[in-house]
């Protein structure tokens, strides 16, 4: 008799749907208005996109294990957003260049993270935290907080506005991105190796996996994806500021955890992180439209997270 177990991404999604349906009953809920409900749902998913993309890199390094985490992603998002803003400067034809620069700059920062972790044996938590300080410091040095630029109309159109029917371009992009991430994790040897190094690096090495290379690649890719996140985010906000990326940092980790990816590495999925991003965004959105003081809201958020992870985040018992 096999125990029926809900996979975390599915559980998170079901929870999201239930919460959303219940929210209709709230005093400020959408009530019977299907249009408003649809608009709200679309909006929540759209907002989740940016968190979701930033959580993608986080998912990779967390799966790569050995305390893998990327605390520099918030700063990288800010940096690449600023770069995009400055490079594009209102020109549609500079958008691809900006995207490329964002990916490369993010990738290089990630590579540094990976190098510190692989070669100098610095624990990822503090290495990437230190890197966050370095990147923030570099932003301050480079522009003293003052930048001039403008995003291109095409970015606004594709990222921030409805693209097909009422569906924003960001959501369509995310779905495609999700499929690519699934391919990467589940249908390439890169993905298989990533899980392998997340579980046991000695085994992986003795089985012919280039562990150092994989680790460098994971952090570089995470950096590049954070860079991509910055690029997309500025397309949504339309403006940049020094604190743009920071608010996404811890939620991106929480999204990964809520999605059922083991923070200790070696197990997880990007679907999970997507579901996690949606759940987190949904909860914050619901709390926004509910009238309660910030203190209560924080407690509700904390409590909901606890309940969520208590449902499926329990680790194996020592006694079986």
């Amino acid at each position, binding site marked *: 008799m096999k125990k029926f177990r809900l996979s975390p991404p599915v559980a998170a999604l079901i929870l999201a749907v239930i919460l959303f349906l219940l929210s209709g009953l709230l005093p400020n809920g959408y009530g019977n208005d299907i249009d408003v409900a649809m608009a709200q749902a679309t909006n929540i998913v759209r907002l989740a996109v940016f968190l979701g993309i930033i959580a993608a890199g986080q998912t990779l390094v967390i799966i790569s294990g050995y305390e893998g985490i990327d605390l520099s992603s918030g700063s990288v998002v800010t940096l690449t957003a600023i770069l995009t803003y400055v490079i594009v400067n209102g020109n549609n034809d500079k958008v691809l260049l900006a995207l490329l620069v964002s990916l490369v700059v993010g990738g290089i920062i990630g590579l540094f993270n990976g190098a510190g972790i692989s070669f*100098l044996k610095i624990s990822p938590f503090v290495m990437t935290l230190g890197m966050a300080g370095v990147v923030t410091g570099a932003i301050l040095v480079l522009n003293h907080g003052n930048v001039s630029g403008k995003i291109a109309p095409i970015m606004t159109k594709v990222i921030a506005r409805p693209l097909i029917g009422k569906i924003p371009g960001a959501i369509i992009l995310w779905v495609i991105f999700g499929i690519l991430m699934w391919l990467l994790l589940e249908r390439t040897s890169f993905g298989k190796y990533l899980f392998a190094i997340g579980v046991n690096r000695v085994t992986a090495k003795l089985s012919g996996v280039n562990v150092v290379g994989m680790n460098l690649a994971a952090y570089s890719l995470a950096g590049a994806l954070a860079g991509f996140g910055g690029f997309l985010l500025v397309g949504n906000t339309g403006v940049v500021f020094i604190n743009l990326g920071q608010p996404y940092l811890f939620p991106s980790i929480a999204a990964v955890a809520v999605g059922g990816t083991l923070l200790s590495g070696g197990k997880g999925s990007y679907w999970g992180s997507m579901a996690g991003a949606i759940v987190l965004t949904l909860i914050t959105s619901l709390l926004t439209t509910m009238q309660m003081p910030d203190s209560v809201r924080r407690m509700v958020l904390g409590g909901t997270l606890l309940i969520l992870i208590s449902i499926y985040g329990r680790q194996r018992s020592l006694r079986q």
Partner: protein
Amino acid sequence: MKRWSWRYLVNRYPAFFPLILLVISIVVNAILQPNLLSLEMINNNLRVFMPMLLLAVGQTFVMIGGGIDISVGGIVSIVNTILATQVGLTGTPETMWKFVFLVILAGLLAGALNGFFIAILRLEPIITTYATGFLYAGLALFILPNPGGGIPQKISEIYRTTTPLGIPLAIYIIVIILLIWWLIRSTRFGRYLYAVGGNAQAAYETAVPVRTIVFSTYVISGLFSAFAGIAITMLSGSGNAEIGAGMILTSITAVVIGGTAFSGGVGGVAGPMMGAITLGLIQNIVSFSHISTWWETLVKASIIVAALAAPGIIDLFRKKGTRI
């Protein structure tokens, strides 16, 4: 391994490298600021570093036991807001001590809640304490929605200026902690702590009360968070629900600079205490070194990364061959 070889010292005494870092930062700081080692400056600096130092000590217990606690900031805030609202700027010393006792209980309780979720429900530490951190921060904000209130200046004076026998209060606290730690390490509890952090399954099979130990590390962290909350309230004399938020990541950095690994099972509290002081001194060094203000953040972060990287760099040069 030779008894006095670098590798032996570094492996055997986790506080060895942090000690070197500390000495270097004291020397550099003293060159830039010649009166650094005057009693007044030592007191000034240590009373500022003390909250972080206490937080790092609590965090160390959790990390040796293989966990992590990022709810400490929330606990600090709760303690601070309770004291600021209940004692108030005009309170009497008696109310103060009464509520000091109460906030210590609050810290223990918050730690116990973390312990419950992590040791008994077996949830992952990072995400659990992230969530309870929201709970605690929300509670602090509930207790004190707007910054304000505080403790009587007379009481914070005690913390700021007491120097029994001419030695700053902080030194006594550090010595007491070291003493207690030395005792703890030589008890079964100390062994269990390392065993659980080293390999929980093996420890369980050896009949170590794994659950109790894990639970207790969070309670200890809650306790030290309460101490840190009291210290920072004494230092600032005021209440602010956001007071602890900025301290979380720094406390973890202090522990790691102090030679206690994330993976658990190694380290001690001496290193992290030195780590906390070193971090504070790095701030001083940057401040006294006449760097353009725009560069300060970058320089400070780079110094910290360099400090974290130093053992690895030394190893790179010493390494004879890759081992699996």
